[in-house]
């Protein structure tokens, strides 16, 4: 009996199929034509053709953030692969599992500066969790299985697999075998929290008078929001979320005190600054959270739970470090709390919450919308929330609109909020929304964006047409790069260097040119009705261009180099 043999291209497809991949996001080119030919000849995996490889990475990323499944990207060698770099960095910064299959020139030409040759493994080394240079045909299935395993376990992240053309061509064949139950001696992601540390954490919690729970993207990645809610309700403590952690607990939960950090709520930052114990869950004390680390929460004992030991005590020293998967550790904490018959100190809690309510009341009205004047961007987000009943998937670009969405759209569930928090990648929003829409065609999927960000991947309107992805694009159009402009107003005496967008296109016509529907909103009285109209169109993409007040700033905002609770609450007014 002869063993059946396969080409490398067929092996890639078979391996992806074995790993239950449904979609590949990509763009063809010379080095990967054999792979495209193999994809063409099967029906299990659908290939989504984008218009730029960067969008393929963001679309895979958005798909992953919405579903939790590993996103797969395919690009050709050279420029195809380098176009993925921004998307890989974006996924890396936010710990998103992704496998990028990059073509490469034949092994015989590697190092010769061949046509469309780039050392993509070298280019991406600082922004990946791991990478593979595939050099043997027989290795392909297990390399891909390992790539998925590494991408999706521990602290997730992107993995690049380089596939030289001569491994994919029809002339070379080998038997196919794959081990999907991957074991590696050099990689054993730590899973359970150390029992001693769990006991120490619970002891610290039980002695706290002013406890705050600070949770981040780890909760979303681990799908641990139910456990988190249970833990918070057990502790009866206030909880704040990072930008990445929004939806980790319902934004309307009574213990939720808002997002913290640079544009977080005053009460969240005040609560952090005055807490005696901070329970950090799947968050990494990013500089956009801490402000000046020297002044960060000097009186707090910090319990830091994270799967990645390098995140612990990197910027802020943790008094009780716990390395482990956040869902497992939270369960351990709950078990230990019940072991010691924990009940919160009601008297201390009463005082603590009273204080928090005082801070909440200090909050100024976030914005002032006056009838007959320009539309305030925050008002648009509120309208969007009302119409979608808070149930939409909201993919954001980067800038003021991102912060307004984070502040004014309380997310009920994790994975609803899709944004580039770590890397801050403009151009992320539209393709990410497309990925979410592909996964959930029956849900409202919004791309909230600005006139700057949308133009960084606007070509994907074409992909939306091809695959019928009717997302609702809401552009808060202020004719400027709003966040840049805000900083220039605050730090550079109002000198608006290159933050003014001259010669903006007519977005309505752009949308129509791609075959979509465009709706322009420029007065407040038509805002609600026209937005409603946009959301009622189910089977076509609607591009809503809302002209908003270009002078509006995002508040609250950290005072630079201050403590976590040193904030501007409105123009020229400190908390």
């Amino acid at each position: 009996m002869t063993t059946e043999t396969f080409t490398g291209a067929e092996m890639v497809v078979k391996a992806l199929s074995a790993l239950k991949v449904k979609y590949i996001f990509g763009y063809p080119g010379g080095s990967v034509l054999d792979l495209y030919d193999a994809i063409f000849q099967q029906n299990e995996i659908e290939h989504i053709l984008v218009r730029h490889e960067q969008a393929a990475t963001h679309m895979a990323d958005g798909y992953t953030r919405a579903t939790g499944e590993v996103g797969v990207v395919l690009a050709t060698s050279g420029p195809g692969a380098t176009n993925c770099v921004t998307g890989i960095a974006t996924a890396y910064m936010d710990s998103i599992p992704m496998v990028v299959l990059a073509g490469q020139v034949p092994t015989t030409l590697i190092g010769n500066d061949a046509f469309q040759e780039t050392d993509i493994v070298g280019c991406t080394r600082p922004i990946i969790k791991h990478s593979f240079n595939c050099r043997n045909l027989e290795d392909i299935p297990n390399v891909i299985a390992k790539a998925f395993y590494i991408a999706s376990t521990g602290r997730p992240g992107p993995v690049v697999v380089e596939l030289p053309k001569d491994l994919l061509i029809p002339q070379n064949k080998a038997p196919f075998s794959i081990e999907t139950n991957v074991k590696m001696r050099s990689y054993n992601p730590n899973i359970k929290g150390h029992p001693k540390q769990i006991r120490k954490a619970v002891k610290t919690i039980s002695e706290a008078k002013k406890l705050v729970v600070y949770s981040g993207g780890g909760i979303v990645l681990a799908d641990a929001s139910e456990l988190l809610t249970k833990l918070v309700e057990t502790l009866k403590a206030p909880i704040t979320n990072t930008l990445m952690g929004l939806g980790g607990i319902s934004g309307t939960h009574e213990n939720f005190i808002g997002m913290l950090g640079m544009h977080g709520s005053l009460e969240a930052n005040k609560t952090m600054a005055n807490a005696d114990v901070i329970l950090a869950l799947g968050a990494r004390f990013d500089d956009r959270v801490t402000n000046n680390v020297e002044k960060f929460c000097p009186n707090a004992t910090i319990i830091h739970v994270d799967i990645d030991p390098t995140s612990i005590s990197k910027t802020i020293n943790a008094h009780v470090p716990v390395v482990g998967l956040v869902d497992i550790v939270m369960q351990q904490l709950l078990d230990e709390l019940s072991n010691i018959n924990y009940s919160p100190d009601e008297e201390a809690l009463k005082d603590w919450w009273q204080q928090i309510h005082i801070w909440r009341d200090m909050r100024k009205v976030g914005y002032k919308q006056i009838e007959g004047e320009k539309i305030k961007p925050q008002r648009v987000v509120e309208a969007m929330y009302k119409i979608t009943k808070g149930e939409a998937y909201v993919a954001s670009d980067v800038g003021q609109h991102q912060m307004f969405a984070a502040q004014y759209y309380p997310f009920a569930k994790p994975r609803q909020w899709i944004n580039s928090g770590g890397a801050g990648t403009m151009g992320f929003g539209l393709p990410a929304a497309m990925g979410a829409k592909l996964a959930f065609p029956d849900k409202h999927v919004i791309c909230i964006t600005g006139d700057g960000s949308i133009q960084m991947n606007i070509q994907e309107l074409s992909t939306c047409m091809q695959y019928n992805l009717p997302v609702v694009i809401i552009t808060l159009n202020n004719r400027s790069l709003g966040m840049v402009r805000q900083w220039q107003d605050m730090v550079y005496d109002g000198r608006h260097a290159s933050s003014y967008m001259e010669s903006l296109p007519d977005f309505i016509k752009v949308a129509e040119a791609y075959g979509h529907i465009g709706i322009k909103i420029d007065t407040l009285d038509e805002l609600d009705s026209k937005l409603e109209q946009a959301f009622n169109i189910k089977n076509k993409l609607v591009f809503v261009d809302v002209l908003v007040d270009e002078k509006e700033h995002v508040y609250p905002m950290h005072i630079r180099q201050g403590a976590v609770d040193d904030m501007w609450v409105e123009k020229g007014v400190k908390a």
Partner: protein
Amino acid sequence: MRHILAILLENEPGALSRIVGLFSQRAYNIESLTVAPTNDNSLSRITIATYGDDKVLEQIVKQVNKLVDVIKISELTDRKHVERELLLLKVAAMNDKSRTEVKRICDIFRGSIVDIGKQIYTVELTGSSDKLNAFIEALSNETEIIESARSGCVGIARGEKALRV
């Protein structure tokens, strides 16, 4: 403070570049770095001498450990250990006086002369990096140093403790 780190990692293409890349990406110092396969050919051992305070060292150890290729990392300088570096030097030996001095210093440091030319001696010395520094200084007081090649340090813990899979 100076630290010596011993790293056991998969002998895979690109593994070394990940380590080097990590150090440059995160602005950690490398004083010296040596790498070679171990008795088990599937494993490489890297020895890195680095500088940094405790906080930086903690991050270096964690970050290196996080690399998928890395199996184990151990700091040698926080316990008893043996540390060696190899030095090859070409020094000017133009006249009797300098030749005698070079020979004498070599004897004192238990180095050896491994090659001679018309006006050049090539000398070899093994020892701790400190000893090598002292040797170079002693020689440079007597003659001109023409070329210097150092291996970077390698080390191993004393006693029962071993870095192995």
